[in-house]
């Protein structure tokens, strides 16, 4: 059979149900074969969004998302999508077309060295130059994406590979990739530390979401009477209505979470890479703490924070091993009680009825009104931090965000991908006007493919987080952070694409608008015109410790975190 037919069959054999891609010259043989395939194809309006859609799909379905772009500009556009998935360890197979092998390297039309471009932003990548190896390369791509720590794998396929002859023997070839080795040598030390801890805290990261270890972590937390703090990526892994779950920690985290993190004597960190947004000043982080670091990727152990004990393995396995090993636990409920008290007190007392409309009010109403299986995606910036801080994730709720790369314009296409993976759930993208303008063309994709997601736009007319930093750290000298009037009329913009849209300016209208949007069978935009003066506070400045935390109106009374 021809390479293009082989490609389609290989995707079908991997149980690929949907792919997100934009065709181009070198992909035409492949797209010609797709005509006869049952694989659903979504045509985004920009390759970057193809990547984000596949990413959103993967985060919900836990299966690798497949995205496709053509050579040259298609591949360069896709780089952001792949890099976003890489930083958040999301499984993906990204396919790019490439010019024919006999002109490769000759600056042919639409040629870019996408193999080199993708190398530092993918878990692994291939350039297929020998048709004999094409089937096994495709199989390897899917295996690598989902073995060990998940990640995106890029396959660059020159057009003549699609036209070459592939034998059944080559198609049948089995492949294997090495599994990462577990290393639980420190297990007994870890158990001992947990058993003797006076003030233990569990910190969970995105790895816990991929490993689906939330339930086990809560069991462990109750056994050792430890509060659980999550990173931004782990939001949704443990139920935020549980008294021991303190919510998101870090730069814009909840004060009680940072308090637990900085005042514990033993920190059990699971599936997290100690991002600078969590640790603040690295040399101060965990200086008084004995850290037990659990990660599936051995290169993460000791990368940022040098722990006492490192355990290499997936979160689910290691947590279960810890539960099995824990026996004599010195009962000291003082720490637990103190944290539970502080957690109750750690609630913002903003007057949410104030006008102009507060963005916090919108998130609060979303949290209150969305169903228990809703999926929330966010863009990047203030909207993301308000969502992380004020939205409560529990039950089957999911929270999907670009935590590592911080890609503006991620949330909307990721919401579309998420909705395709779980069509019965309400999917809401909490957006900012800066981010949405980067990907607003995807309303066309949403309407065309009948993907009814809700975009809750927090419209303040600024690149809000940039503005906040200019205000706090650059003496309010604003440059290039305000969208000068007139900004687009987002209601008209969405309607122009055939989506439904309304504008909300009053606090009293928020809840009703949300209820209306979630019932809509069309893509729906709510343009919340919010107070541009509102900042995301409290905030620990970058590279600083909690001592330097800018509190704003935060009523925290627990002392220095």
């Amino acid at each position: 059979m021809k390479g293009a037919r082989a490609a389609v069959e290989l995707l079908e054999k991997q149980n690929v149900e949907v792919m997100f891609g934009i065709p181009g010259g070198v992909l035409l043989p492949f797209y010609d074969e797709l005509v006869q395939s049952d694989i659903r194809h979504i045509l985004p309006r920009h390759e970057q969004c193809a990547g984000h859609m596949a990413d959103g799909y993967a985060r919900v379905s836990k299966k690798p998302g497949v995205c496709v772009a053509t050579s040259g500009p298609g591949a360069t556009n896709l780089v952001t999508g792949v890099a976003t998935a890489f930083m958040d360890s999301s499984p993906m197979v990204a396919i790019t077309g490439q010019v024919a092998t006999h002109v490769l390297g000759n600056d042919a039309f639409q040629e870019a060295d996408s193999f080199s471009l993708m190398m530092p932003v993918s878990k692994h990548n291939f350039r297929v130059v020998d048709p004999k190896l094409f089937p096994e390369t495709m199989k390897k791509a899917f295996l690598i994406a989902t073995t060990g720590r998940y990640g995106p794998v890029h396959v660059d396929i020159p057009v003549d590979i699609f036209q070459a002859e592939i034998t059944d023997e080559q198609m049948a070839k089995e492949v294997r990739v090495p599994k990462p080795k577990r290393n639980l040598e420190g297990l007994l030390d870890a158990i001992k530390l947990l058993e003797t801890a006076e003030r233990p805290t569990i910190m969970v990261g995105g790895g816990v979401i991929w490993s689906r270890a939330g339930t086990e972590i809560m069991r462990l937390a109750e056994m050792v009477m430890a509060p659980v703090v999550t990173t931004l990526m782990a939001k949704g892994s443990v139920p935020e209505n549980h008294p021991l779950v303190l919510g998101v920690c870090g730069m814009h985290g909840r004060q009680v979470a940072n308090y637990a993190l900085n005042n514990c004597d033993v920190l059990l960190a699971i599936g997290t890479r100690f991002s600078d947004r969590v640790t603040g000043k690295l040399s101060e982080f965990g200086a008084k703490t004995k850290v037990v670091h659990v990660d599936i990727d051995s290169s993460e152990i000791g990368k940022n924070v040098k722990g006492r004990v490192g355990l290499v393995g997936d979160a689910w396995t290691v947590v279960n091993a810890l539960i099995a090993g824990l026996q004599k636990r010195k009962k000291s409920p003082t720490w637990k009680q103190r944290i539970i008290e502080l957690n109750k007190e750690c609630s913002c007392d903003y007057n949410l009825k104030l006008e102009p409309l507060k963005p916090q009010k919108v998130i609060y109403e979303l949290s209150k009104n969305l169903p228990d299986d809703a999926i929330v995606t966010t863009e990047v910036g203030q909207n993301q931090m308000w969502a992380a801080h004020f939205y409560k994730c529990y039950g089957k709720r999911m929270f999907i965000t670009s935590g590592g790369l911080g890609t503006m314009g991620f949330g909307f296409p990721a919401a579309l991908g998420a909705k395709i993976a779980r069509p019965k759930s309400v999917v809401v993208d909490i957006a900012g006007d800066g981010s949405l303008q980067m990907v607003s063309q995807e309303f066309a994709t949403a309407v065309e493919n009948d993907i009814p997601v809700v975009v809750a736009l927090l419209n303040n007319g600024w690149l809000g987080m940039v503005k906040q930093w200019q205000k706090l750290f650059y003496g309010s000298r604003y440059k290039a952070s305000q969208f000068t009037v007139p900004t687009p009329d987002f209601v008209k913009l969405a309607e122009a694409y055939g989506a439904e849209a309304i504008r909300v300016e009053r606090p009293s209208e928020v809840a009703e608008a949300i209820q209306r949007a979630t019932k809509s069978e069309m893509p729906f935009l709510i343009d919340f015109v919010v107070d541009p003066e509102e900042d995301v506070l409290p905030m620990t400045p970058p590279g600083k410790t909690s001592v330097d935390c800018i509190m704003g109106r935060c009523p925290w009374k627990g002392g220095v975190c």
Partner: protein
Amino acid sequence: MEVMMLLVYDQPGVMQRVMGEFNRKRINVETIVVGKCEIPDRARIVLSITDREKAMNVLEHIRALQEVIECDLVDQSRHEAYALLSSKEGLCRLTGSVQEVEAIVSKSQPEKYIQAMNAI
């Protein structure tokens, strides 16, 4: 000096990927030797870097690469050096212990020379 030995797949792009990790970690590779080895379609990379802590930090990242089969630091006792010297008298080829080769190179003050670490 620390010497790291890698066993890798012998195919295009592998060097770029391995060196990319050193680049990302801002580690200057002092010397590097690559060649075929006893296993078909595999190659060995032997490279040296000055800082032990940096070497230890990058080790797991190199091991995580799909095209790297093995990666380890080589014991000091197995470090060797070689050099190729050019002077008016012609070419001179040196192999031997690190101290020996260094001593001869600095003593003979050649017009041009290349010196590298090796180990197995």
